[in-house]
């Protein structure tokens, strides 16, 4: 389609406007991380590096960051395995109940977090009598992360060439070997994209986490929530947000690059 020049300009203008709105609050967060006022007064009465120094000297913050990374990694791993298995099954076979399974995998993310959180909390504590812990958070997160991997892999499988797999089998490769050498490389970047999204979802999740975390399990969002309630801690929280955003550029860049290379 030849897009007219005026349409290009209008689209470009709207896009920049949307991006500006997306980044406006983040800029404010960035500035507030240097704000001298501990209540994030606006405009800032002065600037200080104090919050950055404090943030990196805070053991609780580092521990919470560690907890979040462990939970997000574990949950993404479980989601990667389960999501891939499910995508393989649903893309390669026709069977009774296929649609229900497709719906089932979407439910944990399609239903609001408070419903998922409440349901799991009730099941863990009241029904199973389990103590809430880090494991319960991982189980909960993995459950709603499956869908991101599943959809990415399913989309990729629908575009891959099945002839390669057949050829591999014809040449005498077993099904595990075929999966390892043919299927896995084909869905590799889809796994990375899905896994990364799963990681991000888990990393910033707060509602389901609130309902499923045990005593002493403090993820980064919960640490942030707790610190928002403390006097004079808000700017430290801004430091955390700025840092996570800056760090996340790296995996995002590589994921984009990978999927680009893949598409070529």
């Amino acid at each position, binding site marked *: 389609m030849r897009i007219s020049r005026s349409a290009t300009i209008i689209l470009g203008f709207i896009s920049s406007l949307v991006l500006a709105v997306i980044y406006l609050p983040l800029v404010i967060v960035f500035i507030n991380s240097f704000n001298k006022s501990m209540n994030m007064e606006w405009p800032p009465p002065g600037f200080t590096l104090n919050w950055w120094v404090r943030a990196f000297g805070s053991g609780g913050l580092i521990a919470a960051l560690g907890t979040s990374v462990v939970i997000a990694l574990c949950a993404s791993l479980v989601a990667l395995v389960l999501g891939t298995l499910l995508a393989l099954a649903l893309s390669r076979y026709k069977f009774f109940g296929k649609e229900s399974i497709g719906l089932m995998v979407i439910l944990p993310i399609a239903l609001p977090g408070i419903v998922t959180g409440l349901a799991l909390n009730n099941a863990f504590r009241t029904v199973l009598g389990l103590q809430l812990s880090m494991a319960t958070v991982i189980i909960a997160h993995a459950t709603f992360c499956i869908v991101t991997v599943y959809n990415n892999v399913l989309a990729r499988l629908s575009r891959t060439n099945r002839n390669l797999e057949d050829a591999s089998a014809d040449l005498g490769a077993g099904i595990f070997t075929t999966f390892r050498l043919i299927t896995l490389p084909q869905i590799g970047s889809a796994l990375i994209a899905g896994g990364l999204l799963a990681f991000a979802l888990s990393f910033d999740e707060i509602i389901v986490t609130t309902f499923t975390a045990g005593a002493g399990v403090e993820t980064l969002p919960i640490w942030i929530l707790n610190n928002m*309630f403390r006097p004079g801690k808000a700017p430290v929280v801004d430091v955390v947000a700025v840092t996570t955003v800056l760090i996340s550029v790296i995996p995002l860049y590589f994921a984009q690059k990978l999927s680009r290379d893949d598409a070529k």
Partner: protein
Amino acid sequence: MKLSKAKGLVVAVAVSLALAGCSSGSGNNGGTMLDKLGANEKTLTLLGWPGYAEDGSTDKTVDWVTPFEKETGCQVTFKPYGTSDEALSLFKTGQYDAIAASGDATLRLVAGGYVQPLNTALIPSYANVYSFLKNRAWNTVDKKSYGVPHGYGANLLMYNTDVVKPAPTSWSVVFDGASAYKGKVTAYDSPIYIADAALYLMKHKPELGITNPYSLDKDQLAEAVDLLKAQRANVGEYWSDYLKSIQSFETGNTVVGTTWQVIKNSMSTKSHTEAILPTEGATGWSDSWMISSSTKHVNCAYKWLDYIDSPKANAAATEYFGEAPVTQDACQYASDKAFCDTYHAGDEAYAAQIWYWTTPISTCLDGRKDVKCTDYAAWTKAWQDIKG
């Protein structure tokens, strides 16, 4: 202080595999009181308001847990909660050895059998606690003491001196006179705030017969709800955390409403605000540390209760949170020399004007036998209706 990550994960998995009975069955010493202390158990899991047990992980200079750990060998894990109600549901899981609870939670904890009566003879520093904080409705049931005080404070009236004129002396500025500041009034976001309205009615409409703002029969509750529904039309927002309240006073989104002393102290100097104890008196809180009835670490828990009431630790904890300490001895350890004066610590006349948060229950707390009073569940539903 904390388990290593890997270890934590292993423990977490192991716990999750264990069945219900294993975790809650043993170690329950029910309603009995401890006669003497034994050896410390090495670990202690605490639940409290944010800032009640700081171990330096938030701020290196704020730490009164580490000295306790060194002294007793009890390794502390602390979980902060946001509201009294969240505290209750967390504590019920049985994962915590002790809790710092406000009076709107304590009676529910006692009634549910989640906490044990205390042998205060085993808590030496309890002897120095202000007598007006002892044996009160929110920490003592059937003459048995269930909690030792942590700190106390009043819910004050804060106003913007540029906007709210003349300077108010009464809560009427947020009730009958609230329409003058439509959209800029704030109130505490909890069912327990109904008591603030009840206190106001108690002073201004004596014909309703309210003698204790936590003891309302059906009709009295309805009156308080009507007052709050009228107030709702003028409320800009309800607050439940410091930051929200501070910010909206700073920006002028809010000009009048309930506050805590610590919020007033956190306001910048250029914001013109004043906080007062109105003529009607005020509601307030007096928080107590209580020990779980199913704890397996009762000795460490007793040690903690003793420690938190000791002058140095109590000064550090209450000054950090922004409330009055519970002993006179604590005052000398405060970093701000004016600390005890600012918070009116030990001022009995001031304390007498405070109606401390108490859980409303169906047995009337004011001694009436002929009617049933409304309980906290009723207050919660009423609060939802008020917010609409």
